[in-house]
């Protein structure tokens, strides 16, 4: 096949037809971000509000600006902003309801969990309450909760006389009998319960929990963050750059390893981060490698009575990086494969990778005594 003279032709753009939805969205986001000096991530799954807030002198983002951002991602809403006054809809109404006027209809409530009540009771603060929701039963006049039953329980055990409640009432008119109206209301309560607790529930992720805890001054989170900072790393929702840590569960897992001799947490996390950054300075911190190395340091100190010296890091880093695998990501992937190939299935990742690292050093290292591996399998 020979090259033809098409090579000489100028290529002209041909995409002048209808603009795709993806392209429209990209354009909306681009236009929106043009309003900001400091750019921030805007994805379907999240808009980075922490970085967005840096564009405002007070750090407070007006509600309207967040709405504009959401509209850029989703497209224009069905109703113009500020076009509906919900106070005229009378749903829901708010009231302080006497405890004895509150009830539970198990048709649209789950069983109550004493252990969950106990859990909330420990952290309960009067000014932190989320207002329970209810329907007002047209037959008994009782306020039947479809959300906040455990909150009600805690308040009652705290001696409260009244409970703050958002509630809706049945519409009883010429078209709806009392029976029909009650039925409609119960259906609404059931659907609301499921929507709030199942369909619409968005649990707080580990990244958000860490960042909120740090910025609100939680002791443990601040300590973890300081260790992260000291090792020139940064906690991110998704890791893309050198030193980024996105596996928050393993971050806290490594932090939680206690040094037996001192009773202090965080020592092995710090060592592990230093090892990772010194060995792979251009790579994001792989969560499982961070945890596995912290476990290796802890187990070795526990069994030998000695914390491995920096010379170990240099020797082992070279073995992993130069002699065997290269990038950190490849180390844990290949160790898992070798474990699976030997045992036929994969075990708990921290055990698999920690053991694999110990076994690798025992095979290739020369200078230091390590802990016994938790599992034994052939390694490269």
């Amino acid at each position, binding site marked *: 096949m020979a090259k033809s003279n098409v090579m000489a032709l100028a290529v002209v753009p041909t995409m002048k037809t209808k603009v795709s939805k*993806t392209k429209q969205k990209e354009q909306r986001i681009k236009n929106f971000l043009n309003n900001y000096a400091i750019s921030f991530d805007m994805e379907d799954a999240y808009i980075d509000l922490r970085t967005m807030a840096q564009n405002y002198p007070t750090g407070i983002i007006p509600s309207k600006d967040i709405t504009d951002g959401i509209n850029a991602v989703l497209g224009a809403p069905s109703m113009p902003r500020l076009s509906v006054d919900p106070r005229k809809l009378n749903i829901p109404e708010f009231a302080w309801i006497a405890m004895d006027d509150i009830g539970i209809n198990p048709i649209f409530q789950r069983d109550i969990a004493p252990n969950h009540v106990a859990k909330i009771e420990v952290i309960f603060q009067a000014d932190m309450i989320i207002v329970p929701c209810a329907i007002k039963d047209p037959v008994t006049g009782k306020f039947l909760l479809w959300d906040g039953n455990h909150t009600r329980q805690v308040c009652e055990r705290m001696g409260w006389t009244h409970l703050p409640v958002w509630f809706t009432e049945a519409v009883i008119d010429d078209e709806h009998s009392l029976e029909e109206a009650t039925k409609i209301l119960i259906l609404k309560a059931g659907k609301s319960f499921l929507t709030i607790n199942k369909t619409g529930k968005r649990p707080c992720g580990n990244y958000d929990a860490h960042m909120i805890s740090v910025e609100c001054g939680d002791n443990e989170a601040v300590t973890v963050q300081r260790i992260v900072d000291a090792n020139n790393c940064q906690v991110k929702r998704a890791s893309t750059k050198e030193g980024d840590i996105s596996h928050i569960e393993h971050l806290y897992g490594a932090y939680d390893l206690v040094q037996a001799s001192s009773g202090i947490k965080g020592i092995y996390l710090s060592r592990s981060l230093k090892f990772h950054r010194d060995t792979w300075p251009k790579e994001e911190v792989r969560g499982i490698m961070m945890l596995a190395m912290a476990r290796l340091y802890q187990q070795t100190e526990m069994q030998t009575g000695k914390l491995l010296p920096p010379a170990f890091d240099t020797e082992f880093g070279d073995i992993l990086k130069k002699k065997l695998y290269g990038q950190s990501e490849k180390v844990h992937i290949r160790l898992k494969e070798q474990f699976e190939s030997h045992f036929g299935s994969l075990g708990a990742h921290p055990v698999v990778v920690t053991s694999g690292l110990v076994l690798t050093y025992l095979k290739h290292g020369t200078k230091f005594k390590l802990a016994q591996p938790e599992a034994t399998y052939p390694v490269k």
Partner: protein
Amino acid sequence: MRYYILYLRKCPGVKNPRHFKIGIAALDKVRTRLASYQNAVGPVYLEEFMYFWIGEDVDVKEAEKKVKLNFKSKISSAEAGLSEWICEIDKQEILDYIEELKTEHFIKLEDSPAEFTPMSMNNCQDFSEWFEETI
């Protein structure tokens, strides 16, 4: 473990290209991949991978991810068919970055042998056979 290639393409028929597509293909699928590109342009042009690198699956996939991330600002759209094109760039910038991945990120990639570079339908079978013998 499988072997892959990381490849760099240009727009068909363009002299002095400024837009490049980065991509990967399993070694046993290289011919099929090239054939798809060749099919799109027909007999008037010989499609080719201008440059390519060989490595294990983990390394090649990581390299592709890192190239796309590093040149994210040069990828003009996430739209299908456009999300892998790095635009308005000197190819040397991409080649330098891939070199950096090898030396500073410790991603193990082997440069393609000179006799198979660029790779086209004319020599891809020879390359596959060479690799089978070499591995």
